[in-house]
């Protein structure tokens, strides 16, 4: 990560600090002087937002508490797993160290359907890398491996679209370059497509959680995201999302949907276009694939900022179509709204709690907490949601489990970690509004 890039990000943080903390503090202060009820109302309103957000977290955690095994629907046709295409997308200079392991894991370990598999490495590289010749030798040994150099491509979406033109499997598995997929993934995923779903999203697990504090937090966070949040959405609302990797698509659908090249989260964009066209996505947390988490704060920052900005792009484009979608019921529309515009609104408004409290202190002339039984309830309800989620995540975690210490660390740091992530989201909003769209490729190391 260059120093210049990091300096720019600090400058953005400073701007956000002024815009969301300093300026609102004075606005609320002056409002409070003339209209004290506005300050009071704003305080309770923001606290209520925290309660709502925490209530969603409890709902997901509680519904994911029990392990639920796959239950077959009457619509199952019991067809054999068809020929399947794996598409692994890679940006070679950054992902050289991990790509060979990813490919060899698929070639050596994945259980083949009767009609076999094909493995397409979709890559772009600004110059010929030594690894490319090495990979061509592997392709000579393994006819299932197809190397597709998406010449002139500048994005992951272009690589994927290029590979989709070549793919011949009936089921298509999309994977990032660092993913080590489990050998039984195809039969587990096909069960869902066989009974009528169009896409199934598997569980992504972090395998380098012990290398740094950041990756340790992300490991437990992923257990919560994939073991609770996505799973619970699928279970409660019968709708969930494709997260960009470890996703299993019906070939006909993904070839029609393709990936838009102007999106920072092409996966969410593809998800929403699929959902709006009436397709169904399920989440199966038993289909496990391991990946590498960012190990540094800088890596984490740029990864999450891209995700947040991509989600924002999708929120602005698809919130209204989701509300008007004839294929979604009212509960599914609610769920998608909590993922789209609600997140944007919450990220901005939740920061206003601090300016409101600061304005209250300024008005009072002393530091005192405006507490009553409602606020105490809100405080405990909100602060306990993270540790509760961590407990459920631990109970349902995939093997090998992260250490209990990692879960304690996550539970302890949930609140500042969430605030930090919300801050990244706000910087992403700032970047999107100013038209700054930059894809910082994550550096992958073994």
């Amino acid at each position, binding site marked *: 990560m260059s120093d210049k890039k990091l300096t720019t990000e600090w400058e953005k943080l400073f701007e956000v600090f002024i815009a969301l903390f300093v300026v609102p503090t004075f606005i609320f202060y002056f409002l409070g002087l003339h209209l004290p009820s506005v300050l009071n109302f704003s305080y309770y309103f923001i606290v209520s937002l925290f309660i709502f957000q925490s209530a969603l977290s409890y709902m997901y955690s509680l519904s994911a508490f029990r392990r639920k095994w796959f239950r077959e629907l009457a619509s199952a046709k019991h067809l054999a797993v068809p020929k399947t295409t794996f598409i692994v997308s890679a940006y070679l200079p950054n992902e050289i160290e991990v790509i060979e392991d990813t490919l060899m894991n698929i070639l050596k370990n994945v259980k083949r359907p009767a009609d*076999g598999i*094909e493995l*397409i490495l979709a890559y772009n590289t600004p110059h010929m890398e030594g690894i490319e010749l090495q990979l061509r030798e592997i*392709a000579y040994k393994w*006819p*299932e*491996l*197809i*190397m*597709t*150099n998406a*010449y*002139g491509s500048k994005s992951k979406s272009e690589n994927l679209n290029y590979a989709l033109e*070549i793919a*011949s499997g009936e089921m298509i598995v999309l994977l990032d370059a660092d993913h080590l997929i489990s050998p039984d993934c195809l039969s587990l995923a096909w069960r869902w497509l066989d009974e009528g779903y169009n896409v199934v999203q598997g569980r992504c697990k972090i395998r380098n959680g012990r290398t740094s504090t950041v990756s340790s937090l992300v490991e437990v966070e992923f257990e919560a995201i994939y073991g609770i949040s996505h799973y619970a959405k699928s279970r409660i609302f019968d709708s969930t999302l494709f997260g960009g990797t470890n996703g299993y698509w019906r070939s006909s659908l993904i070839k029609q949907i393709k990936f838009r090249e102007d999106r920072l989260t092409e996966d969410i964009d593809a998800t929403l276009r699929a959902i709006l066209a009436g397709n169904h996505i399920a989440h199966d947390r038993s289909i496990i694939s391991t990946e590498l988490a960012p190990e540094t704060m800088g890596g984490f920052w740029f990864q999450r900022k891209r995700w947040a900005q991509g989600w924002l792009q999708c929120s602005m484009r698809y919130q209204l179509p989701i509300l008007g979608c004839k294929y979604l019921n009212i509960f599914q529309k609610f769920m998608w709204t909590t993922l789209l515009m609600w997140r944007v609104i919450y990220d901005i408004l939740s920061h206003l709690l601090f300016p409101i409290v600061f304005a209250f202190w300024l008005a009072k002339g002393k530091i005192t907490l405006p507490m009553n039984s409602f606020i105490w309830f809100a405080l405990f309800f909100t602060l306990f949601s993270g540790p509760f989620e961590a407990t459920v995540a631990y109970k349902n975690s995939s093997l090998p489990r992260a250490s209990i210490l990692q879960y304690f660390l996550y539970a302890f740091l949930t609140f500042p970690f969430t605030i930090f992530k919300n801050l990244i989201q706000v910087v992403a909003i700032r970047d999107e509004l100013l038209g700054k769209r930059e894809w910082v490729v994550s550096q992958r190391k073994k």
Partner: protein
Amino acid sequence: MSIDKKTLTARLRQLLAVDKNAFAIYSELAELMKEDDLSAVFSDIAKDEKRHTIWSQEMLSLLEK
């Protein structure tokens, strides 16, 4: 020496990807090249690569029948 249908299909699909890649590169070089002679040579090679992809596709269709 013999080769089974599955491996032959897989090999042809590998070649198809390589030919498509070569076609894209030669086409771009033909476009970028300022000297007419060289541009014509690259353009001819690009056409050859295009023919390779068509043949590969035809063979794949025959194999899939």
